[in-house]
């Protein structure tokens, strides 16, 4: 048992850190620090910088562009990327549909899609949730009927993140309504430019428009866009949902946000000539979160280490703990980031291109309350915290 990084791991961290320092465009870094909206061009630009360095898809097999890193290296890479802070690569391609295509796709699919995902030539989005199926995903209703050499798709998806930018969507569709609900589902890749697709933005309470409804009205999808076998879509979805593990805790993100919080607390007046950082209660509130975060980081390293030992090939229910605690911590930090500016959390300052009014209060105040509102989603999406508790109760505690 030796919880220190090896010299090789430390050297690797230095290399990664240096790369992020040098390669991350300052305009993107600034937006990340300020918690402002990134546009499509930012995310594409950064993904291509990573791809040029060969670091776009570290987790993939080497033959498809992966790096062959150890779990610890991957952990270091992710942690440093979050702390840079750099945008996460678009997960729908890199972490979701990519691994599914690698595991279950045809050779043609692999050759066509994988390089395009690496370089974000295709922007992917995810078509799983439907209005009637949230936690109960398998009850989905969008149907795909095989007609000759194509499928005819009808139905509706929702909560589709960044669909407004998307070139492709991977969907769970019902190809057989006559069997058990999990068994009639297939996994389809659909071109977003197909006739019959309509995207309607869902504005969230913070004023952002990052999620959408996607409607399918007699959309024709070539049969070759089926991944793997018809009726096996549910298995592929489970594979996909279990694929991402340790990143889910977003420890690096929380570290970076706490740094930011302390920076702001040193600036923000507390009344009476004092600063927020001088307030013992506020300092202790931060410290209490730091303690939980340090514990979570260690918990995450334990999962990474177990993975390195190859002891855990299938989805580790420990990732549910990372999700539970990770979301609580991120939300708690977002609360303090709103609290730190006191009354100046109230002014609404649009986070839009072209908005160039002088800031109200401090220039950093604008995104803080909206981010607090927006981050309530963290305990809802990707399997709500209630679902995570159900998983742990069953899979770990045997209840």
């Amino acid at each position, binding site marked *: 048992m030796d919880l220190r990084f090896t010299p090789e791991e430390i050297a690797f961290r230095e290399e990664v850190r240096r790369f992020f320092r040098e390669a991350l465009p300052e305009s993107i870094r600034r937006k990340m620090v300020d918690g402002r909206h990134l546009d499509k061009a930012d995310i594409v630009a950064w993904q291509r910088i990573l791809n040029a360095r060969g670091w776009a898809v570290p987790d993939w097999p080497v033959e498809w562009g992966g790096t062959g890193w150890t779990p610890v290296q991957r952990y270091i890479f992710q942690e440093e990327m979050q702390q840079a802070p750099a945008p996460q690569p678009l997960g729908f391609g890199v972490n979701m549909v990519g691994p599914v295509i690698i595991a279950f796709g045809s050779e043609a699919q692999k050759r066509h899609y994988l390089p395009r995902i690496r370089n974000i030539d295709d922007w992917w989005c995810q078509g799983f*949730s439907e209005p*009637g*199926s*949230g*936690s*109960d995903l398998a*009850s989905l209703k969008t149907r795909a009927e095989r007609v000759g050499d194509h499928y005819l798709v009808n139905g509706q998806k*929702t*909560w589709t993140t960044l669909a407004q930018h998307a070139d492709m969507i991977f969907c769970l569709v019902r190809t057989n309504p006559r069997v058990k609900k999990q068994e009639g589902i297939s996994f389809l890749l659909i071109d977003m430019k197909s006739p019959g697709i309509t995207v309607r933005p*869902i*504005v*969230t*309470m*913070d*004023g952002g428009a990052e*999620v959408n409804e996607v409607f399918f009205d007699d959309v024709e999808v070539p049969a070759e866009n089926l991944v793997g076998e018809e009726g096996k879509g549910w298995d592929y979805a489970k594979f996909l949902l279990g694929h991402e593990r340790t990143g889910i805790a977003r420890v690096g993100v929380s570290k970076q946000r706490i740094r930011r919080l302390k920076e702001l607390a040193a600036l*923000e*007046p*507390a*009344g*009476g*000539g004092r600063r*927020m950082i001088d307030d013992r*209660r*506020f300092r202790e509130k931060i410290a209490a979160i730091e303690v939980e975060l340090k514990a979570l980081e260690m918990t995450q390293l334990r999962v990474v280490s177990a993975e390195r030992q190859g002891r855990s090939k299938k989805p580790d229910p420990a990732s549910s703990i990372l999700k539970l605690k990770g979301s609580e911590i991120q*939300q708690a930090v977002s609360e303090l980031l*709103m*609290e730190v500016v*006191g*009354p*100046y*959390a*109230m*002014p*609404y*300052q649009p986070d839009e291109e072209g908005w160039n009014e002088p800031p*109200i*209060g401090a220039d950093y105040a604008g995104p803080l*309350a*909206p981010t*607090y*509102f*927006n981050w*309530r*989603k963290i*305990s*809802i*999406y990707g399997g*709500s*915290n*209630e679902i995570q*508790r159900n998983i742990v109760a069953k899979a770990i505690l045997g209840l």
Partner: protein
Amino acid sequence: MDFDLTEEQRLLRDAVERLVAEEYDFDKRKAYAQEPAGFSPARWAQYAELGLLGLPFPEALGGVGGTPVETMLVMEAFGRGLVLEPYLATVVLGGGLLLLGGSAAQQQEMVPEIARGRLRLAFAFGERQARYDLADVATTATAAAGGGFVLSGAKGVVLHGDSADRLIVTARTAGGPREREGISLFLVDAQAAGVTVRGYPTVDGLRAAEIAFREVRLGPEALLGPRDHGLDLAERAIDLGIAAVAAEAVGAMSALHELTIDYLKTRKQFGVAIGSFQALQHRAVDMFVALEQARSMSYLATMMAEAEDALQRRRMLSAAKVQIGRSARFLGQQAIQLHGGVGMTMEYKAGHYFKRLAMIDTLFGDADHHLALVAESGGLIDAA
């Protein structure tokens, strides 16, 4: 001891609830927010007709002689409707300051105008460096040659400051930058030379303003209340404001809780209503307990809002603000969580309650601020 409403109070409550139900559904509210002032002048006129704008004022001043209980009933209904109009700024704070500290002439000039819906006020007490400290006043009013004052400084996050006809401004007339003594209140015309108002929407859909005063000349009659000893008056008005937003928060929480219970009963997953899951049931109960605790403290705040004993009044109002803040945060966050994705959307009312509740916590000082005040004042129970 009696928690019952009088017949008149019941009628008032029913009338306001009906008004909110009829004139303040979700779509109408959205339309009102798009109007130039950020609220509905038509509704404001209706409030005047119904006597709501004169509620706390004596009949001699064109009011109806209500008590804080009547204000509580209105604010609770307004909380349910997420009402946008500047009732708090104009009637509760502005009107309250005039009643508590105004000269007979000031009262006679302005109070009837408020009641008629023809005068709107805003209370400009906050400053950028002060956070929630009412005594941290850097704005100055220096005595002018030949009587009157010259006002200079800046006030921030002034609730409905952009639609007010007149502003009531705290300024330092004596003493060091953060002393309790040496603060006076002034009535300032929003159109006066040297006054710059920058209005903006707040994240909960209401309006506020940053206001700068550059050598604004005020006559001697602009002074509201005692010279140099105005902080007590400001605090009394803030306490009225705390009681009012406590009731508003209870209204919002109560509506949000009902919305959540309805959702639990109707939303189906895995073939059953999600309200059949015990973990969610127990969460809903904990939310209900938080709501009832907040409601109790709203009653207490109402009862204590005009208490003469300043120490008792301040600590009970601070206690109420703590409870409101804590309950609102817990209930609001859980309501969004239990709704899942739909609770996150702009198209659904839950998120708007959530945002308003979050902003009520920052109004007049957040829960941590008031907890510190309670603790500093020795707490609510005397030692043995």
